[in-house]
């Protein structure tokens, strides 16, 4: 073997490894999706195509109510977290003030502390101040978890913003709000969109915090699925899970393209 050919062996092995890992990551999801179209409730083979679980799911009032609630909470979380997060990012970016570093560090606990701890802490506190469990509590929790993601994403976009553009606008006579509206916001728009998509995903996929804060019988979709799994598998759960994963992967695909996650080109 020539030295040049020999040099190609390691990269080829590496590619094969990457392919195996992709199989590991996607195979169970694909199996689940396939089984949601299998007629047998016990995942029996041979495979027999059927949409009966999707029909059952559509007729299941509990699943529908939970889906509606999950989407509603996710949309509300997206709107609130994006608005508050974008404002905070602009504030952190535009001004230098004592304590700024501290405010930036404060964004990490909601991301870094296990959600089990945060979720149980919220439960305890919300009960103590009278909010208790239920959809408002879930929404408050979701917004708090989504905020750091929005702020980090928008700040990342802002950091590539050329401040002299604002100075140029000011030199042309624009006041602070005009500069914000006409120069700054248009530039960070892709960051805001990506942040909004992250916020939606954080809320829509959120299980742990919802689990502690949702009222039984009034739960979000992931909590409903968890309860159903622990009672025993049902193929309807399979069907709704397939829809969820397709939806959340689709959203994240868009977010990643917007944010040029992974270094861009």
């Amino acid at each position, binding site marked *: 073997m020539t030295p040049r050919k020999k040099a190609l062996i390691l990269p080829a092995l590496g590619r094969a490894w990457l392919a195996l890992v992709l199989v590991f990551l996607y195979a169970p999801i694909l199996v*689940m999706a396939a089984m949601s179209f299998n007629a047998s409730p016990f995942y029996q083979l041979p495979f027999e195509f059927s949409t009966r679980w999707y029909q059952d799911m559509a007729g299941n009032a509990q699943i529908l109510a939970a889906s509606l609630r999950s989407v509603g909470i996710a949309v509300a979380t997206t709107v609130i977290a994006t608005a508050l997060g974008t404002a905070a990012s602009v504030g952190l970016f535009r001004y230098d003030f004592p304590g700024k570093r501290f405010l930036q560090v404060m964004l990490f606990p*909601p991301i870094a502390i296990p959600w089990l701890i945060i979720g149980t802490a*919220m*439960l305890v506190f919300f009960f103590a101040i009278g909010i208790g469990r239920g959809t408002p509590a879930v929404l*408050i929790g979701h917004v708090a978890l989504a*905020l750091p993601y929005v702020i980090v994403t928008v700040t990342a976009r802002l950091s590539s913003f050329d401040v002299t553009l604002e100075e140029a606008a000011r030199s042309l006579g624009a006041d602070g709000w005009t500069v914000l509206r006409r120069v700054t916001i248009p530039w960070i728009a892709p960051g805001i969109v990506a942040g909004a998509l992250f916020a939606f995903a954080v809320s829509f996929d959120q299980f742990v915090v919802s689990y502690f804060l949702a009222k039984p019988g009034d739960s979000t979709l992931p909590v409903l699925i968890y309860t159903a799994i622990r009672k025993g598998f049902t193929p309807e759960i399979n069907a709704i899970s397939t829809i969820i994963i397709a939806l959340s992967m689709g959203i994240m695909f868009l977010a990643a393209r917007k944010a040029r996650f992974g270094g861009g080109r």
Partner: protein
Amino acid sequence: MAELATPADKRRLATLLSPAYLWLTLAVFLPLSAMLFFSFVTDLPQDAPDWAFTLENYGKFLENPVYGKLLWKSLKLAATVTLFCILIGYPCALVLARVIKGRAREVLFLLVILPFWSNSLVRIFSWAIVLRGNGILERTLEAILPWDIRLNLMFTTNAVVIGLVHSYLPYVILTSYLALQAIDDDIIDAARSMGAGKLTILRRLLLPLSLPGLLAGAVLVFVPVVGSFMEPRILGGRVGTYFGTVIEDQFVAVYNWPLGAALSFVLLAVVLLIFALTSPILRKAQT
């Protein structure tokens, strides 16, 4: 960046920042403080008027060896999962960052991190379908292999590990990839021009230069796995009792919130210790 010159600037800054930070305070920082308080009381003040301060909740953790054992079990689980994530994920990141180029790299990277943002509960559930006795995995292996096979993976520690590795693998790939991709190609070319082979380059350049990224990924895996409860419940069945599931029980089944709060804070202390131990290296990564 502007200094805060005028009172108008200060007002504007407060308008921009306070909504987000008040929200975080209400929903994260006050709850954590409240839970710290509750971990030192006998009963919840809103339930029992005769509540008192006590160290008993932490005392229970120290007295009853079950809690310590479960914490140790959770730490071992986290170490195992982290190790597998590194062994599987780092080579992947290496291939993505240093072998694959251009458009293919972008697409493959997206494919790798996509599951990381999809619903983790659903992904764990999908493993339950694959691993269950007489399930898809066993049938597939039976079809390929000539002999009968009984994996009996479902409701074992192995199933929990597989599910958790699947859940957290993208973290390690993501952080390692970002660190590896940031290494200047010329540095590698320079090493090769001096006669270094692939292994030397890996050992003396790529590994040390990407170590902060790899470590960040490891922390991002280790910390949530120590506190995991949903994955062991679904995939571990009866062997799936861990420190996280005990905390969950205090809040949703046993309703001993002060004990749950104390156990949560023990967990938080472990997490903070991990951050403290790794932060010197992680901070180096930012500069």
